[in-house]
């Protein structure tokens, strides 16, 4: 067990998987000589050489397509996008080629490819570079989507993603790369599709993933001061999603607040609300509340950006609503 940053945990997963399987290759903008825009691929070019660590032109659709072809030919490519905002250009390859190949070939052609990179907002990158795409990606049958929030989960889920025979989207975060945590050495694999309770509680379930885990944990601390015991459930995988873990927790607490980085309309939270209302209806004591980014393009202004993002304060307010702690508004 070592204390690593999220960035180094990803680096460790890449290195170990490239050592383990010579078919694993890494490609993307600046992954080689520059060692990655966020230094996730540090040292890999030196260790594995330019045939396995490939610097690409600034052409997302092109290199995503090369990755898809390489996967069809038997390699296990890891395609890095400098951010998922740029990956929009590659969506045709991801959605129409990678996600469909197994299905359209009648099960003959596997697609063992990983698309990874930072997702969502950092700080003051404005509206075009501050977008959380998980609901778009998790929408697509044929894709798997993971969104680790801790260094240990980052390592374990990236390893699972590389070993999976299907296209797996790994959503990282610029604001996560520097966080530190204990990471098991060597063979540490987190199964795709398994959520984890990051904090136990009894009064309300906070369902979160990726960058909203720290938000939810902070809210849980504040709630504890108000004698509210919040359970924090980190989804970790968004497709497949761990329905039984969600339901088990909500059945215990009878109330849920779902916290996500993206916009409200047709977001991940909408899917969670559907699962909860359908299969835990009789266990609910209040309508599920959602905390999301404000339904606007992300503002550049620092204060407006802060106001637009999900925050512990917004989570606490939502929890007070599901617990009926504040005076009821008149009907």
């Amino acid at each position, binding site marked *: 067990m070592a204390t690593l940053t999220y960035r180094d945990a990803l680096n460790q997963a890449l290195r170990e998987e490239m050592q383990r399987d010579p078919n694993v290759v890494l490609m993307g903008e600046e992954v080689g000589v520059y060692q990655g825009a966020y230094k996730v691929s540090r040292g890999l070019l030196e260790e594995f050489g330019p045939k396995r660590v490939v610097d690409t032109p600034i052409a997302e659709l092109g290199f995503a397509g090369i990755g898809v072809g390489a996967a069809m030919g038997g390699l296990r490519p890891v395609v890095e996008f400098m951010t998922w905002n740029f990956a929009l250009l590659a969506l045709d390859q991801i959605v129409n080629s990678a996600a469909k190949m197994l299905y359209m070939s009648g099960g003959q052609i596997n697609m063992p490819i990983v698309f990874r990179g930072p997702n969502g907002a950092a700080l003051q990158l404005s509206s075009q570079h501050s977008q959380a795409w998980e609901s778009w990606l998790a929408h697509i049958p044929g894709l798997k989507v993971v969104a680790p929030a801790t260094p240990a989960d980052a390592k374990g889920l990236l390893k699972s993603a590389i070993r999976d025979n299907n296209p797996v989207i790994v959503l990282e975060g610029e604001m996560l790369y520097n966080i530190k945590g204990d990471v098991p050495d060597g063979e540490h694999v987190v199964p795709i599709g398994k959520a984890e309770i990051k904090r136990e509680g009894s009064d309300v379930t906070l369902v979160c993933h990726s960058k909203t885990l720290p938000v939810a944990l902070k809210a849980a601390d504040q709630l504890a001061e108000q004698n509210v015991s919040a359970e924090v459930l980190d989804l970790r995988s968004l497709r497949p999603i761990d329905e039984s873990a969600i339901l088990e927790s909500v059945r215990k607490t*009878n109330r849920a607040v779902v916290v996500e980085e993206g916009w409200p309309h047709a977001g991940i939270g909408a899917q969670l609300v559907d699962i909860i209302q359908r299969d835990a209806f009789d*266990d*609910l*004591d*209040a309508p599920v509340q959602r905390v999301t980014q404000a339904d606007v393009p992300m503002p550049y202004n620092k204060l407006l950006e802060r106001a637009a993002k999900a925050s512990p304060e917004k989570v606490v307010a939502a929890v007070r609503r599901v617990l*009926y702690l504040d005076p*009821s508004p*008149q*009907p």
Partner: protein
Amino acid sequence: MATKVHMEALSPTMEEGRLVKWTKHEGDAVKSGETLAEVETDKAVMELVARADGQLLKVMVQEGSTVPVGNVVAWIGKPGEKVDGDGAGAPAPTPAPAKPAASEKAPAPAPKATPQAAPPPSQAPAAPADATRVKASPLARRIAKESGVDLKLVQGSGPGGRVVKRDVEGAPAPATAPTAAAAAPRPTRDVRRTDVPYEDVPLTQIRKTIAKRLAASLGPVPHFFLTTDIDMERAAEAREALNKQLGDAGGKVSFNDIIIKAVALALVQHRACNAWFQEDHIRYWNEVHIGMAVAIEDGLITPVIRNADLKSLREIGAEARELANRARNRRLKPEEYTGATFSVSNLGMFEIEHFTAVINPPEAGIVAIGSIAPRAVPDGERIVVRRRMRITMSCDHRVIDGATGAAFLRTLKQMLENPLAMLL
């Protein structure tokens, strides 16, 4: 569009209300939250408040008339706005035998040249169901079903009165009014020969509720009765001494206060009698809340002295007087007359020597207190005169067995015969 004002369910058991007085009149400006009218429910006179801002456009119900919960009693809207008098008002809701009025309702067949010419779509009949429907969270519904609680009797604390988990867990306290015995003198006149042989008096809201609830007690609840005779000599001396001590400080201690305190303390030692029967389980209470039957004009009500075991005689006395006063003025809030774990009914002041009281479900017991009067009792070889009091406990046999009730009564008797024991 103008907003309807419905007769609202202002108590957990209210099904209809009598409009006592309009405090706002047609043409008055009203604000959301302002009192529009006073309404007599089955329990008390309560305020009906506005749920919208605007002008009180039209009053549909005259003072003195009784209207089912959910009916439209008035309209609030912009000055000059027209409202439909479409029978939505008083009294019966008549759920309009769906008149499809094809010409009006038909989904616009084709773009009409002059849409204005079309008759205005007929106002949908007021949906009284909305105001009477119990709003409850799915979880609260499930808990209520499993524990046999009637959601209609539960006061919801969520938005719009939604019943939520804490409300059904906090216990459903089917509202008040037990003890036929404690019924007050009827507010009717003395019998006097006149030219009419009888007078028909319509049932008031509270009398209807009493009738319903008492029938729901004596029938299904298997009562049995235990009577004991208590020497009140020492309690009387203690009371005189205490009141002397208090002097003019006010807040004199009454026998009733002493009895309530003794009952509460005896219950602490006999939790088996401090219980509710709940269909598939018995709820033994760890708190002692004493319901105190109070005679009011044309009925009775049982305000609750909460945690009576923990309160001093003076506190009990002050609270009992205050609650009784407001009960007589019909100003009790629902939470002040629900939730008792055991009740006391006292007819001593009417010189009733002995009576039996009707249990107020789901409570499992009630004691009926007779008068304190000097009586000749043997004292060894001699006969002495002592102040004595007879009390009778009614027990719900589903919860309390004979010996259980008797043990409680023995403790109560010991406490009253030796009031110092209450200090233990």
